[in-house]
């Protein structure tokens, strides 16, 4: 069972789940751990989802010496040369980590942000690919994030490749997906074999339930661990100083998820 929008606040459980928390909080903590797992100097965050932004702020508030460039920050926007500066900055190799999602994501980590049916998406049209065809290949690494985990989104083969998960030998590419975080689990990506492996299961999930909800094949060890729940300290940061930083850009998200009751 995955939490739905009507049932977001998971119940407290055993020794690993000491504090009641929202799924969004679990996901932000998951992503924060993936960030901290590798050296990360400079992260760029688009407006796509507030959850990766929360993860980045969490890492920063935990004291990691990370620089955050938030694309859609209105006051104090980091770019003084307009919107092209993000892409130039990334072209320079200065961005270690970026986040991408996709209308479809397939088992080779290809992303489809274009649509379904004939090009350019005559059946279903997504807004478009933004900078993904560049960013995915030019950042040090990418964390893929898509809360919806269903066979509709996680497909065997995307209808259209906005941005390729792996590249042919000789093609200039700085990095790949590090992981795919969904509402059900964390997958690690292995660019050398262009395959995902199951890293951890969110509460209530099993390898079988993930297989059932996933359109692509993936590797799984015999004993896939549970996703560790947020610690009390992580939750306090999220609901306190992280929420403070996010209020201007994501007021609706902050109201819905952090609620501020927890911080009071």
């Amino acid at each position: 069972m995955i939490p739905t929008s009507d049932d977001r606040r998971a119940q407290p459980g055993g020794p690993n789940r000491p504090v009641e928390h929202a799924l969004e909080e679990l996901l932000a903590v998951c992503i924060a751990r993936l960030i901290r797992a590798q050296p990360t100097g400079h992260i760029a965050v688009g407006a796509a989802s507030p959850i990766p932004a929360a993860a980045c702020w969490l890492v920063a508030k935990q004291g990691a010496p990370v620089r955050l460039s938030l694309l859609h920050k209105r006051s104090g926007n980091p770019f003084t040369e307009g919107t092209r500066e993000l892409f130039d900055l990334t072209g320079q190799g200065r961005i270690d980590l970026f986040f991408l999602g996709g209308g479809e994501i397939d088992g080779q980590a290809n992303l489809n942000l274009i649509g379904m049916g004939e090009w350019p998406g005559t059946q279903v049209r997504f807004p478009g690919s933004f900078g993904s065809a560049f960013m995915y290949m030019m950042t040090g690494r990418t964390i893929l994030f898509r809360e919806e985990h269903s066979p509709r989104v996680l497909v065997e083969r995307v209808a259209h490749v906005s941005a390729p998960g792996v590249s042919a030998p000789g093609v200039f590419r700085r990095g790949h997906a590090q992981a795919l975080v969904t509402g059900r689990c964390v997958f690690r990506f292995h660019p050398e074999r262009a395959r995902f492996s199951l890293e951890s299961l969110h509460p209530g999930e099993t390898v079988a339930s993930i297989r059932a909800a996933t359109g692509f094949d993936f590797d799984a060890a015999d004993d896939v661990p549970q996703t560790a729940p947020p610690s009390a300290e992580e939750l306090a940061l999220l609901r306190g100083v992280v929420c403070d930083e996010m209020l201007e850009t994501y007021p609706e998200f902050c109201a819905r998820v952090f609620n501020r009751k927890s911080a009071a």
Partner: protein
Amino acid sequence: MTLTSLDAMAASVPDGALLAMPPDNSLPSVALAKALIRRGVRGLRLLGVPVGGFAAEILIGAGCVAEVETSAVSLGEAGFAPRFTAAIKAGSIVMRDCTCPAVHSMLQASEKGVPFMPLRGLIGSDILKHRPDWQVIQNPYGPPGDEIVLLPAISPDVAAFHAVMADEVGNVWLGRRRECATLAHASKRALVTVERVVPGNFLEDERLASGAINATYVSAIAIAERGAQPAALLDEYGFDAAYVADYARMARTEAGFQEWLAREVFAQAVAAE
């Protein structure tokens, strides 16, 4: 200094023009988009720099647009752009998908007067497959097999954006939104709406000069107070999320969109007369 009215500015954009506009986070002239709808412009080829926002969406919905070249059309937090999505499904517009830095690079090529600009990335993306106008060459400075995309220069017929202010010699000021400067440099004409016209010359003020666009690139200026709304304008006013959410709700259907147009575009002109 070439001060004109918003309607005269809209009238100066010919049917079929290649019109380039920034999206909601970088100073679109929504006022001019609405004036273009009222003028009944047809056959526009829109370039979203690097994506399309609210202004692109309403121009598409109003039937003003034949082609769109951009990296996305989106209402941001309010989600998919419903009239854009409907037009793609109906096949009523030609869509040329880009990637954001490609739009910037094609404009910078025109800015520099070079016929093309290289760009990394893109190889292996279906975006490239659907752009027969984009060439791939062996990087002459790279090892064998290192291919790179060359993007042709693009020079819009008309650039349109909203700045904070113009000075008395026709320079405009928009601070850090320098993509609008590149857009003006690259375009044949730049039409700029502003909140106000102020005395003096921004170029004489070291604090303002770096956020100014020299009048040499500015074809016409029209005053349009709150001309970026519902988009934000630097520290002048914020994003009007309720307005866009209301639009997104109404524009789910063609009928709802027409009702919105009547109320928010055509009735506004009557009210202003």
